[in-house]
């Protein structure tokens, strides 16, 4: 079973992120439609029959995922992260994203999602089973956006951590569907088990229809580049 899983992972495009962090970043930007990844602040489900490719490159590491939404409440995908925050390791596996609850309001939308996965973690020659679970709560209007995400990661003797992230921001102008949407946000990460307990990142978010890009620079001097594409 373990052998089959390792084979699956090794043949996956997500395996690109095993390499050094800078190489993964270059691959992810250069191979825009080939490499894959998840900005956890984007919704982890798209529309039924839609595929979402997401990537996050920030001070915690390089995250990649591809998800297919097969039901209004569920998306199944592959998740991979090369962690660089304090200890370097790689983790990957299948992930199930669930829309637990949605509030559709006349001028806004609120959601609670869960993201859970199991897989393998690797640090040098040390391979460990891994599991992760996260909740994502968000509320947005055409002007305001707020989200909160707590996350638990278990990877045997490689990693056991709790992490949480919050976003708050606004759109300086209200764009229509076929126009460029721009957002100004502040992201706060709290990593109790890491050196930088609190990291603040001002973020510029752009999206045009199904293409999403986020750029930021964190308080611990890391460039953030996240993107998402739906198709």
């Amino acid at each position: 079973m373990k052998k089959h899983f390792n084979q699956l992972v090794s043949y996956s495009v997500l395996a690109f992120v095993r390499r050094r962090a800078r190489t993964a970043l270059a691959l992810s930007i250069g191979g825009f439609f080939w490499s894959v990844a998840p900005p956890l602040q984007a919704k982890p489900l798209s529309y039924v029959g839609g595929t979402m490719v997401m990537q996050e490159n920030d001070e915690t590491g390089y995250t990649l995922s591809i998800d297919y939404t097969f039901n209004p409440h569920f998306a199944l995908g592959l998740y991979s992260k090369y962690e660089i925050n304090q200890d370097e390791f790689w983790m990957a596996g299948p992930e199930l994203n669930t829309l637990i609850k949605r509030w559709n309001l006349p001028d806004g939308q609120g959601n609670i999602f869960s993201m859970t996965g199991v897989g393998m973690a690797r640090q040098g020659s040390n391979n460990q089973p891994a599991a992760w679970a996260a909740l994502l709560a968000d509320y947005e209007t055409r002007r305001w956006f707020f989200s909160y995400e707590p996350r638990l990661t278990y990877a045997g003797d490689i990693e056991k951590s709790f992490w949480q992230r919050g976003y708050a921001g606004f759109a300086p102008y209200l764009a229509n569907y076929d126009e460029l949407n721009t957002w100004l946000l502040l992201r706060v990460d709290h990593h109790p088990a890491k050196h930088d307990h609190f990291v603040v990142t001002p973020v510029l978010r752009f999206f045009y229809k199904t293409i999403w890009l986020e750029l930021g620079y964190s308080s611990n001097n890391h460039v953030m580049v996240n993107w998402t594409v739906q198709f």
Partner: protein
Amino acid sequence: MRHNLLILVILAALSGSAFAETITTTVNGMVCAFCATGIEKTFRKQPEVATVKVDLPKKLVTITTKPGKTLSDAKIKEVVTFSGYAMGKIVRQK
């Protein structure tokens, strides 16, 4: 004379049934382009639909059907709900 009148009535009825219909619905929860994409793509998959237009500021989706086709209120609600949103008021124009 009566015969010609009958033909005219039949032609009028036939041409009326071949008109496309423009249906506009408000969608609650449709606040961003990512949301709207799902609704647009799901409507486009319906065989009766010719065009779909999204107006985010007004939270409106305007659907034009193919000539002679229509979409029932129940079907529109089903598509909007399946896309993950809530349907509001529907307005129809021929």
